[in-house]
């Protein structure tokens, strides 16, 4: 009979891969509350990591968009101080000198009137200077620093003949000037506000300035030309380094080492870098949350195995081999962890999006972070499930008959 043939062919028990998934999944939905609670730990960890990285990456995207818009080729030159602590004034015509340096595209200058202050009206106390600087501005300055007029107009050769000033955004606020056409005092003299600037990102010092044309500056300075105190340079992006080296010798041939040349975009990037360090700390905290979540999953699985000795015994009697039991519980741990991972990814992405939109940033979550988050959950699920699954597989088949 065929029986003897059957006897010679070894009979294997087999569990289809699709059934492993089905078993893992149905194991979870059989105890939904427990599944949700233990997935929560993973979800919080993943959400924290993704939100932290996403927010940092969005602010990075915002920075590079800003730098793209503003350019990274702006340099500022400030006069050095001598060994005696005196400020070495920049020479008249420094703008023209710098303009001749190879690679320089455009140049703007400002010259601070140290003893002159701006007041809202004659009633304002003379000591109440609001910390605003009064300075001359070359007509190219606005274009060079990439500034924008919020209202009114910029200083022109035409307006330079009249006592007209342009206010930085913060100056206008401090002086209480809402629109062009209002009048303020520089010292005792009345000036009309010709324009108000928007806040500038690369040259924030302009925000707290009261700017007047170079001719007006001379008359405000008792007829003496005002020495330039800052030079703003746009250079060819490719030649920035060589320009940077040539500037000190050009503006101060006698003491080039005293001159400071700055690059405002570097300062923005440096601030970003310090934020990165903080991000690292938060990611560290997120990974601790994830670890705790993983322990929660392992704990849930261990309890589950203890409670389901009967079920395991029954499955063994139905023909499950040890690897089948192990796979079932491993799949369950993976699903549990993945449930938390998917929820955490969604939450983390939502938090990032909300935060970015709230700050007016572009939303940027690197796909590799999403993939990494889900990958991490799978690794955690596997690690957390390994021990309980091995315990489950060791439960003897005779459990099914224990009454």
């Amino acid at each position, binding site marked *: 009979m065929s029986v003897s043939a059957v006897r010679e062919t070894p009979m294997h028990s087999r569990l*289809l891969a699709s059934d492993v998934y089905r078993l893992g999944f149905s194991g979870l939905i059989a105890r939904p509350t427990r599944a949700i609670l233990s997935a929560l730990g993973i979800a919080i960890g993943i959400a924290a990591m993704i939100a932290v990285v996403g927010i940092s990456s969005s602010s990075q995207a915002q920075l590079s968009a800003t730098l793209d818009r503003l350019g990274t080729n702006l340099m500022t030159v400030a006069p050095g101080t001598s060994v005696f602590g005196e400020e070495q004034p920049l020479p008249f015509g420094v703008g023209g000198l710098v303009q001749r340096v190879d690679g320089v595209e455009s140049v703007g200058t400002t010259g601070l009137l140290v003893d002159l202050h701006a007041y809202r009206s004659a009633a304002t106390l003379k000591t109440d200077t609001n910390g605003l600087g009064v300075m001359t501005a070359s007509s190219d300055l606005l274009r060079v620093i990439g500034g924008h007029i919020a209202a009114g107009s910029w200083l022109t050769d035409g307006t330079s003949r009249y006592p007209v000033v342009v206010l930085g955004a913060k100056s206008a606020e401090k002086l209480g000037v809402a629109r062009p056409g209002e009048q303020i005092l520089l010292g005792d003299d009345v000036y009309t506000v010709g324009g108000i600037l928007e806040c500038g990102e690369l040259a924030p010092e302009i925000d707290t300035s009261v700017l007047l044309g170079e001719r007006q500056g001379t008359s405000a300075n008792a007829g003496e030309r005002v020495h330039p105190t800052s030079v703003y340079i746009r250079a060819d992006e490719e030649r920035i380094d060589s320009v940077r080296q040539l500037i000190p010798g050009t503006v101060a041939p006698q003491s080039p080492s005293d001159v400071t040349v700055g690059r405002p975009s570097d300062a923005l990037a440096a601030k970003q870098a310090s934020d990165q360090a903080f991000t690292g700390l938060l990611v560290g905290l997120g990974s601790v949350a994830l670890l705790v979540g993983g322990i929660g999953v392992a704990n849930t699985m261990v309890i589950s195995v203890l409670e389901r000795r009967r079920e395991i015994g029954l*499955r063994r*009697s139905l023909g499950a081999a040890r690897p089948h039991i192990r796979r079932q519980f491993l799949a369950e741990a993976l699903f549990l962890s993945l449930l938390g991972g998917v929820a955490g990814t969604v939450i983390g992405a939502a938090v990032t999006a909300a935060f970015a939109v709230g700050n007016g940033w572009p939303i940027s979550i690197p796909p590799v972070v999403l993939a990494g988050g889900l990958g991490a959950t799978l690794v955690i699920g596997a690690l957390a499930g390994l021990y309980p699954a091995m315990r489950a597989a060791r439960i003897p088949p005779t459990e099914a008959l224990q009454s």
Partner: protein
Amino acid sequence: MSAVIELRGVSREYGKPPTRALDDVSLTVERGEMLAVVGPSGSGKSTLLNVLGTLDRPTAGTVLIDGIDVAAQTDAQLAGLRAHRIGFVFQQFHLSEGVTSTDNVANGLLYSGVPLRERRIRAVEALHQVGLGHRLGHRPNQMSGGERQRVAIARAVVHRPPLLLADEPTGNLDSKSGAGIVDLLHELHGEGTSIIVITHDNALAEKLPRRIMIRDGRLTADSSSTSERVVVTAGATP
């Protein structure tokens, strides 16, 4: 002459000062036989069933299932044997709550590598066979005890095993449902399945063609007509 089960001098000991749950048991069950194992509580009936069903290995003696020596098989091979050749019925049914009777029965084929669709088709057939064609979508808590045990029996036979082992299958049932289960077992026996029923219910045992008594782990009586095949009172050697 293929015996579906052959035990030779089988013992199973438990614990540090070893207690013998089975003591030198020899037993042959021919293909297509139906028999009851009767004995008081704690006499070793379940231990015997575990050994017969390859759920447990003896500490001494030889167990041949379908002529296959259990001692020589790996755990995975024994699992394969159970998946294809043995069906189990338990006193407590062991059905999955929240799962329809069709899917409970389909689980009987889970470890045979049969795809879900085909498992369900064969589960429906098996449920019709045990008289539950009208309970295909019911869950265990929507059914009576007798119906639940029928579902469990359908699960045990859905892979058409030549050997069915039942441990106190009527122990949790009233006498009317119990009688129905016994009738069902007789039907399955009529279709060629070898069946071993463990019970301490003598009335049930009376209805089966062959009865084996067990006490303190030893076979004490065998009602089989071919009595030379059987066995073994205390102290006898095979």
